[in-house]
């Protein structure tokens, strides 16, 4: 049998394990809810991406595709990875470095027509920069074809 001291230690250990398990569970839950998977325009064109779930998509802004709608800030443009183009719509202010031909990453949800409704558009500080995901996925595709 355990004596009083051992019992106390046992309770403390069990308490710590339970508490940390709870913390880990909560953290993983929060992590799971806030992960944004990355897809290329080709993957989306092939309907591999989930609709109405936050995702990220990267590509080059197709020159001539940027269209303003009305007097507001609503803007639509196409992103390409060289093979397929997906239309992105965004109601907000584009980053300073956004321009045609620039590689960007957009975060948002796909609607049922496989158009990306973006909540955030990310272009980097650097004009010669290409987002890593965009570069790698484009490279992979050129190698495939």
């Amino acid at each position, binding site marked *: 049998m355990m004596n009083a001291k051992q019992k106390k230690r046992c309770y403390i250990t069990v308490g710590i394990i339970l508490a940390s398990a709870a913390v880990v569970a909560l953290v993983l839950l929060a*992590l799971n809810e806030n992960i944004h998977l990355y897809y290329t325009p080709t993957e989306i064109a092939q309907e591999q991406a989930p609709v109405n779930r936050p995702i990220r998509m990267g590509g080059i802004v197709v020159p001539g595709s940027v269209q303003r709608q009305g007097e*507001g*800030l609503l803007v639509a443009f196409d992103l390409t990875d060289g093979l397929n183009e997906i239309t992105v719509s965004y109601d907000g202010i584009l980053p300073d470095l956004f321009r045609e031909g620039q590689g960007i990453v957009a975060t948002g949800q796909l609607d049922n027509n496989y158009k990306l409704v973006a909540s955030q558009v990310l272009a980097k500080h650097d004009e010669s920069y290409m987002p890593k995901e965009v570069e790698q996925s484009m490279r992979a595709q050129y190698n495939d074809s």
Partner: protein
Amino acid sequence: MIPEAGHFILLLAAMLALLSAGAASYAYNKHSNVAALLAQRSALAMSGFVIVSLGILLYSFYKVDLTVTTVYQHAHATLPWYYRLTAAWGSHEGSMLLWLSILSLWSLVFLINTDYSNRLLLISRVALGIIFFGLLAFVIFTSNPFTRHLPVTPLQGLDLNPLLQDPGMILHPPLLYIGYVGFALPFVMAIAVLWQGEFPEDIKRLMRKYILFAWAFLTLGITLGSFWAYYELGWGGWWFWDPVENASLLPWLAGAALLHSINVSNNRKIFYGWTLLLCILAFALSLLGTFLVRSGVLTSVHSFANDPERGMFILLLLALYTLPALLLFAVRAGRFAQKSSFPSTSREGFLLLNNILFIVMMATVLLGTVYPLLIEGLGLGFISVGAPYFNTVIVPIVLILAFALGFAPLSTWLKPYKKNTKIMVSLLLVAVMLIGLALLINMPFLVTLTVLLSLWIVSHSLIEIANKKNKAKAPLSYWGMHIAHVGVVVTMLGVAVSSHYKVERDVSMGVGDTVTIHDYRFTLASLQPIKGPNYAGEQALFDVQYKDKALALMKPEKRLYSPRDMALSQTAIKDHRGRDLYIALSEPLDNGRWAVRIHYKPMVRWIWYGGVLIALGALLAWFDKKYLARRRYEKV
């Protein structure tokens, strides 16, 4: 010739680093005083050489020597001299050399502060020499700032990224690095302590000083960086949970735990193993931060084009430095195991809780930051972790921490917390009244909670100060503690109030259009072209009215920097009665209209005021004479 001299001096410094490590190791093994002196001298020369090489790089930038590749890539003759100089650390290569130069400054401080023949610290000198050698090799082989751009000398440089042409650039990197890099000293000292199996008093005190100083500067660096991002990036945000920001937050959190635990080690001679582990952790996280920022492995809004090859090198260094240290810890930590018992509500108990909470925060931020890397490394695709993750996990921990912080100053070493019924009852009454008021004016839950916790902390601090006997004789570290804790309150209030009561309007405006936020009316009065030394652009004039009275003329600008053909929003910010009015001119739309960001942010500056207070508190504690390390001369 001059850049070659810089390169050559770096090579010499690398040799000297090896020499000093070797000599220190020989001195330790053979009890040789001469070798110890040699280790000291060569380490001094090495540190001096690294700083001289930074001087040479600065000179090349000052002279805009376009034959040097980094100068060509980051400078331009039209830059004012101070941005020409700071352009040196706008480049990856120069930034790493600055990192090393600040490590050299720290190393000089260490060499001067300590006795060269101190047997225990000889181990530290070996470790420091090895660290220097590895980082110098990194700079020389992968990021040499003195590489020439030959044979064709370009006519003009590519200019410094306009985002970096800002006073923030002059101060932010050095401040941040003083903090980051400073954790190298506790690290090498911890290694020596573990090796020797003893933790002498003077080492503990010296360690405490270095930790406080480094942490204070890290705090300043992060605070300044946050403020800079706020006014420069033109989004009106002050923290994005971006990997590059997290990279500096990780060592900060570990450092916060460390500076509390080293106090327990100093005052109560316990927590030794834990303190030593935190020393290793803080430096490992600093290196990890350098890796995250410098390798560009994560898509960040702050990082610039960089080279993944370098990332591998830093990762290798990280492994080479920390794995042996952790192994040493695993083998030797047992020697520091003490039988100590203290009530869970004693000061030791509260500081232990503080440490656990800081480390849990650190671990959750670390998880969110490197998780995308792990997934990518396993070939499972690209992911990113959104900011809501960090907010969800960090906010509750901070609130628990704040609650415990209230008790901390009134707790005593060794004895359980003494309940003061009068205080409790009166605080409870105030809390009830406040909650009533909060319900009445419809205050959001988190704001109410933050205000309550702030009152909780401040009132405990005040009660403690009022009860303190001999206030005049209280050490500086005592006041430092209170000031830093008030700083935490100030930042917390700033975060809570500004994020719940902010109003953000992203709108399309033409001349004559008005946006109204609460009592403020913003009218776009006119637009006019402007021209600067290396940019051209458009300036908007906003007529701002408060309660129908003219308040200010705000002039946000949109600039196009010609050498790099890069656009930049120059925000206009006005502080009116504790509220920030923030206007950024974003992009031209059709028909002469502009996309404009108009934000109203009450108490947002408290976030940074709090940061400054926290740093000030840490500096006061650092300044405390009580902990001045007394020199102990000890024969080898």
